Structure formats: C-alpha cells, structure tokens
C-alpha cells in the first residue's frame, strides 16, 4: 500500500513538474506547481513526517502560491509569451526530450545497480516518526543555531523588500 501510494504521488509530483515546464500559460504553470507542492506534502506524510507535510501545504500551497497567483492575476502575465518557437528549439524538442528521458533512465539504472542496498542509513517508507513536539524539540535544541540564523535571514529579506518598495515610491 505504501509502495503504491509512493509511486502514485511520486508520479503526480514528476508529472506536475514536467507540466509546469511544458505549459505555455503562466497560470497553468502556477497551478501545476501547486500540484507538485501537494504531492510533495503527501510524500512527507508517507514518510511519517505529518507536521512537515501539513506545514508544507499551509505555507507553500496556501500562502506562497496564493501570492504567485495574485501577481499573475494582477499583471495578467503570460500574454506576451505566445510567439512562435524558433526552429532550433523545435529540433531541441524532438531530440532533446527523448534524449533526456533515456539519459535519466540510464542514470537511475546505473545508480540502482551500484547503490549499496543495505547499508541501513536511510529510512524506510512509513518509518520516520515526526509529530509536532519532536520537530519543535529538535528545532530548539539540536538545530537552534540554524533556526535562528534562518530567522535573521528572513528578517533581512523583509527589510530588503520594504526598502525596495520605498525607493520605487519616491521616484
């Protein structure tokens, strides 16, 4: 069951990511990015990291992507991108996409052949136990420095955004 769900949502994830690149309209790309975020959250859930999964949905799908869509709606972007593709890019499409797939498959096959199968380093599906209390404990003990540095980084980003917005207003 876990295996099946993993393959299903993994396929959704990759499919959404490919669709994101293929789609010509910006809004469709944004929507496929939401699909990617959602299936990533479900993959986290399969690993047992329920808190991270839900936070992924709330923050990425619920907040950040809403702002993306907001910007697309406001700017009505994507209408200028409708021009004909050049000849070179068509050639690249015909040869590049199958080549990419073949390369990817060969790469995965080689990796699977040569990977040390039972080193016992990775988590098996459904094994990772990640309730909110564990995540909180780890954030405030083991990874405290990284956590605080990230918060300072976010603060700098917010201040930078404020400064940029101010300057454009004064001009």
């Amino acid at each position: 069951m876990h295996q099946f769900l993993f393959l299903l949502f993994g396929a959704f994830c990759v499919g959404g990511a490919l669709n994101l690149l293929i789609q010509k309209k910006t809004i469709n790309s944004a929507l496929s990015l939401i699909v990617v975020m959602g299936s990533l959250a479900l993959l986290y859930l399969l690993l047992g990291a329920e808190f991270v999964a839900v936070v992924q949905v709330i923050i990425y799908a619920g907040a950040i992507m809403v702002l993306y869509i907001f910007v697309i709606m406001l700017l009505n972007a994507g209408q200028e991108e409708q021009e004909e593709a050049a000849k070179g890019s068509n050639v690249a499409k015909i040869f590049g996409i199958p080549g990419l797939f073949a390369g990817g498959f060969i790469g995965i096959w080689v990796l699977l052949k040569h990977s040390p199968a039972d080193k016992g380093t990775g988590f098996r599906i459904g094994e990772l136990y990640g309730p909110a209390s564990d995540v909180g404990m780890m954030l405030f003990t083991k990874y405290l420095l990284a956590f605080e540095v990230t918060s300072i980084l976010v603060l700098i980003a917010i201040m930078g955004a404020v400064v940029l917005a101010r300057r454009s207003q004064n001009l």
Partner: protein
Amino acid sequence: MSALTFLIVAVIKIAVTLGVLLTVVAYTVWLERKVVGRMQNRWGPSRVGPFGLLQPLADGIKFLLKEDLTPPYVEKNIYLLAPGLALIMALTSIAMVPIGPIIHLFGISTPVQITGVVDASGQASDINVGILIVLGITSLGVYGIALAGWSSNSKYSLLGSLRASAQMVSYEVSLGLSLVGVLLMSSTLSLSGIVHAQLGHWHGIPQWFLFRGQFVAFFIYMMAAFAETNRIPFDLPEAETELVAGYHTEYSAMKFAMFFMAEYANMVTVACIASVMFLGGWSGPSLPFLPAAVQAFLPLIWFSSKIFFFLFLYIWIRGTLPRFRYDQLMAFGWKFLFPLALANVVVTAFFVAIRA
C-alpha cells in the same frame, strides 16, 4: 476491527456526516432569509410548505434546471475547475471535526468523527495534527475564489476575487494565531485531544477554554472567521452595490450554487472549529434528570446547539452591521487583530510557563 469493517464504518460515517452537513447548509440559507426577514420587519420565505420550510428544496430544483451559461472568452478549464475546488475544500475540513464521543452500535465502537478511531486503550484518537489540516484546507479554499474571478475575464469578478484573496490571506494570520493560545493550554494539535482537555467542571463552570482566559482569542477568532467566510461586515468580495456579485458574477445555475454552498459549508466548519476550540466541542453540563434515551444523545445535542448559536450569530450580525470600507478592513486586520493575537500568544505562553 478488521479492514473491511473499518472501511464500511468509514463510508457510513462519511455519508451520514455529508448528508447532515448539506442539510444544515440548505436550512441555514432558509434560517438566514427567515431571521433577516423578521429583523427587517417582513416575513421571509413563507409560500413553499409550512413556514416556507420547503424553500431550500425549491431553490435546489431551480438551480438544477436553470440554463448553465458559460460566457465566451473565459479561461474554460479553470472556469470549470474553480467552483468544484471551492466546494470540495469547504466540505473536506468537516472530516477532522470531532462531533461526538465514542458510540457503541451493533457491537462496534467508533467516535462520531470521520477521521477518528478507537485506539488500543479504548480511547478516541484522531490525526495528530488535525487543527493544522483544517487550517491548510481553509487556506487552499482561497484558490476556488481567486481562480473563479480571474478566469471569468470580467472586471467585477477580478476585483471581487482580488479583494477576497487579499482579505483571506490577511485574516488567516490572525485566525491561526488566535488558536495558538488554546493549543498552548491543551498541549496537543489533535482536535479530539483538545475536546478531552476541556472535559469536567470547576465549581459548576465548564472547563472550556473560553472560561479559562481565552476570551480575547475567541473574540479575535470570531472577527477573523467572519472575514474568512466573506460575511457581513467583511463581505467586500461580493459587495453587490459595487461589484454586482463579486467573484461569482459570471457563474449561473449549479456552478453558482456550488459557490453558495461552499460559503455556507465554510460557515458551518468555522462554527465547528470555534465550538471545539473554545466551547468544549461536544462536552457540556450533564443533565441527570433527563431520561436515558435522551442522555445518550446529549453530546450531539450540545454540539449542535453550539453550532446553532454560531450560525444565528452570523445571521444576527448580518442583520445588524453595515459593510466596512476596504482600507478599514485591512487596517483592522493588520493593525488591530494581528498585534492583539500576538499579545494573546505571549500572555498565554507566560501563564502556561508559570503553571508548568
């Protein structure tokens, strides 16, 4: 419990809850028209059936039989996707809500909650991060409205959906923060765990978080919830004097009805979460003088009366208050509710730390 029994019980629970929810949604519309009618000194619906009770049925038939227009120049796929998205997101979150305690029927015991199960020790348990899932689904509900307005290719719809998404994203912050105090006090994210933390009495007063110092949080939650569900006094996304009908201007027949149902289902969900977080969910004073047959249903009666109270409050406020201006709405959300919610989190954390 075997896998097959689990599946059957789950399907029955989903069917019953969904049926009840949709009936409540239909009759909330009736109640709203009736109560607002009386508040404005008129009768409200009174023609279809006694007291107009069959009005929701008549409305439903009308929505089904009306012509389903799709205007030209809309983004067709997204235009068709949006109402479904809005309705699904509105209906899904009810799965997390603990409606009642464990019931025993035909030798099977299960809590009255779609995602709830009875664990090995005989206690009701549910998803560990239930409240976060509800918040996540609520935040996804914005897409239905945002995409509906954008894909309609109409100025009124676009303005309505821009207003709606800005408003919902802004008030979600205060909404989430107002719940943090309760989560700190109950030290769990599971909704049935939160209900269990509020069982019992203290000198006859129920141990609800509303009476244990979270009344500021309750006030913030209610304000933010009114904004989240686009209700008066925060119904700017569908302000009919300015925007015709806001984001669903271009929708007709059943697609319009789906937005309508989504709005009322969201109201019910918000009321459920409010009663679970602040009013003890299905818990309530025990009334020992009632006969045993009524006693068994007492938790459900308490829960539904709390929901009724909230729905009536919605209607009452709709009949009382005028609409905010948009800058007032944003200033109220960011400059008043948000700092107040942060202060509430700090004060609650302080008291929880002292007690611990």
